[in-house]
């Protein structure tokens, strides 16, 4: 049992740290959900990619470094410690690419991965529908077979589509077989968001920015080449993304250890008084929980190295980081006292943290998964399966 990095891992860490120190913008970029900020974040992705830091765990032929899981964690830790910009390509790189590598054809990989790595094409996820949130498999948007043109015709509506307001491509599930049982009969599609028949309506989030959108599909043609995995196999294909999103990939520990360090700095500069006193335990607990998350992740990485899979433990992970993120930012606002309501990066972080317990599977769904799949408690009687 050890927590030691190897010499090559230490060299990787030093290289990442040096490059980030040299290249991370001194001033934070404008929000990536504004047109100007979006472009600047894409330029940052291009810069990362040119130095082969945008997709370190991908194979070298796709701009990656074939980094191990340990190296990926190291890179993320350095990335957040350096205060580098949010990743505008996150949906594609962290959610879609694992499925493209697992289920995509060679042609799809060659066509989609390079532009994803450089930030040239930004991807949006299109999962939920107005009537299908936690119960995603009840989705109603349809895909109708069009043999003449060799593809499918999409109709329906998706909502809460992160990055869709400005992104170039989307991915999501559509019901391709209306006769099949709920989870069967779904197909995974990739589609350009400027295709004929696609209408994107941005939705202002709690902070006023259009971080997500609703997307309408009116007879949108998608060729067979843009179906990911087999028709009808979409649920299984998509669940490999969900496991990734809920699990290790989306929220690396570096994000929280760096935030806990910034919280400690804020505490240190807060004058003595009731606000500081009341927040003291919250500051310590944020540090403890971030440290627990860091160590827990090394345990997960050790199991994955041995060929294990993250499974339902991804749900344990997700509840932990999302609640830690909220608690950490609440503590920061407590320290800021009457200035808490004023615009600041802490306030931005707080507002964003509030979405954590909701997206990527609500924490209530995660607790059901933990109770049923880890603790082995009986399933609750389910509603309609059609």
């Amino acid at each position: 049992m050890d927590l030691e990095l190897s010499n090559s891992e230490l060299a990787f860490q030093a290289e990442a740290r040096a490059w980030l120190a040299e290249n991370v913008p001194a001033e934070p970029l404008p929000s990536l959900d504004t047109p100007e900020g979006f472009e600047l974040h894409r330029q940052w992705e291009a810069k990362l990619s040119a130095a082969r830091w945008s997709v370190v765990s991908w194979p070298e032929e796709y701009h990656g470094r074939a980094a191990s899981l340990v190296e990926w964690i190291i890179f993320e830790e350095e990335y957040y410690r350096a205060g580098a910009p949010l990743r505008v390509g996150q949906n594609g790189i962290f959610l879609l690419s694992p499925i493209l590598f697992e289920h995509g054809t060679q042609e799809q990989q060659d066509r989609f991965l390079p532009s994803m790595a450089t930030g040239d094409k930004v991807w949006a996820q299109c999962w939920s529908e107005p009537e299908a949130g936690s119960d995603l498999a009840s989705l109603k948007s349809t895909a109708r077979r069009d043999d003449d043109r060799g593809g499918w015709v999409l109709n329906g509506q998706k909502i809460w589509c992160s990055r869709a307001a400005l992104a170039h491509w989307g991915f999501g599930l559509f019901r391709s077989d209306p006769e099949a049982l709920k989870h069967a009969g779904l197909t995974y599609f990739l589609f350009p968001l400027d295709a004929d028949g696609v209408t994107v309506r941005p939705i202002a989030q709690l902070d006023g920015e259009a971080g997500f959108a609703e997307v309408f599909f009116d007879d949108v043609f998608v060729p067979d080449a843009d179906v990911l995995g087999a028709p009808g196999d979409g649920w299984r294909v998509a669940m490999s993304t969900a496991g990734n999103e809920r699990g290790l990939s989306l929220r690396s520990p570096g994000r929280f250890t760096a935030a806990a360090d910034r919280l400690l700095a804020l505490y240190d500069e807060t004058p003595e008084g009731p606000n500081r006193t009341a927040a003291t335990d919250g500051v310590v607990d944020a540090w403890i929980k971030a440290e627990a998350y860091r160590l827990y992740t090394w345990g997960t990485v050790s199991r994955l190295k041995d060929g294990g899979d993250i499974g339902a433990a991804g749900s344990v992970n997700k509840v932990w980081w999302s609640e830690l993120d909220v608690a950490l930012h609440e503590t920061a606002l407590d320290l800021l006292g009457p200035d808490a309501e004023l615009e600041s990066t802490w306030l931005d972080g707080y507002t964003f943290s509030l979405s954590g317990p909701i997206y990527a599977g609500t924490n209530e769904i995660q607790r059901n998964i933990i109770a049923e799949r880890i603790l082995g408690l009986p399933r609750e009687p389910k509603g309609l399966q059609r």
Partner: protein
Amino acid sequence: MRFELTTDQRDFAASLESLLAAADTVAAARAWADGDHDAGLKLWQRLAEQGVTMLATEATPVEVCIAFEALGRHAVPGPWVESAAYLPVALGREVEGIGTVAAPRALDADIADEVYVAVDSALHTATAGAAYVSVDRSRHLFDVTPGGTVEHGDLAAAYDLAVLATAAQLLGAGERVLADAVTYVKQRKQFGREIGSYQAIKHHLADVRIALDFARPLVFGAALDPTPRSVSAAKVACADAAYLASRTGLQVHGAIGYTQEFDLSVWITRIRALVTAWGTPAEHRARILSTLVGA
């Protein structure tokens, strides 16, 4: 980088587990509470034969944590933290028989072969005085009067190992309460189905699973690199997680859990006692904070 127990460490955990699962440890704890130490002392002897009393001097803190997690899981009575974690480091030798030390009161000083107290960074022998009754009836606590000083090793390191061992004991106790609660809610039926099928119960127990899962790596991380900060973090997290387990375990058991006769009571009272033993959560949080800010 391999943050998982080795095969040898797993085997050691499994051998302790089978020894303790086969011994009636709860009966030993209940008898110990009533002043009958026979079963507990026999258990002590068997654990000593397995090497538990020499881990602090002969093995690493990882093995110490494995052993104390097992002791907590089975509610083994006696001054184990004092005798097998603190004193071996403080004295620089394994304790033959049973030792105890005031922290601030001395556990089981009435039956200990050696009694000590640390005063102003010096270790003294001590004699037991007034006795106190703990919420955990198996914990007999005594005031002590210091005697002469004795040669000692690193008392700070001894304290840190005692804190870590207590954290591991809490982790084991919390895991036990969760396991027993899960078993119970799968059997108990109300309104025609197992109460464990209701979300209200599921979500409570899921929160305990989460808290214990994130306390464990702090224990073993601190075992690999024991510092005042790392062991305090482990103690805070394990106390919080085990206490949550005890409250939740009691709640999902309902009235039967509130009886002394039902074995859950052994862990509920043990956890409550250990939360403030070897440093209160507030003291450990203050210790962590002092290493993080104002340097």
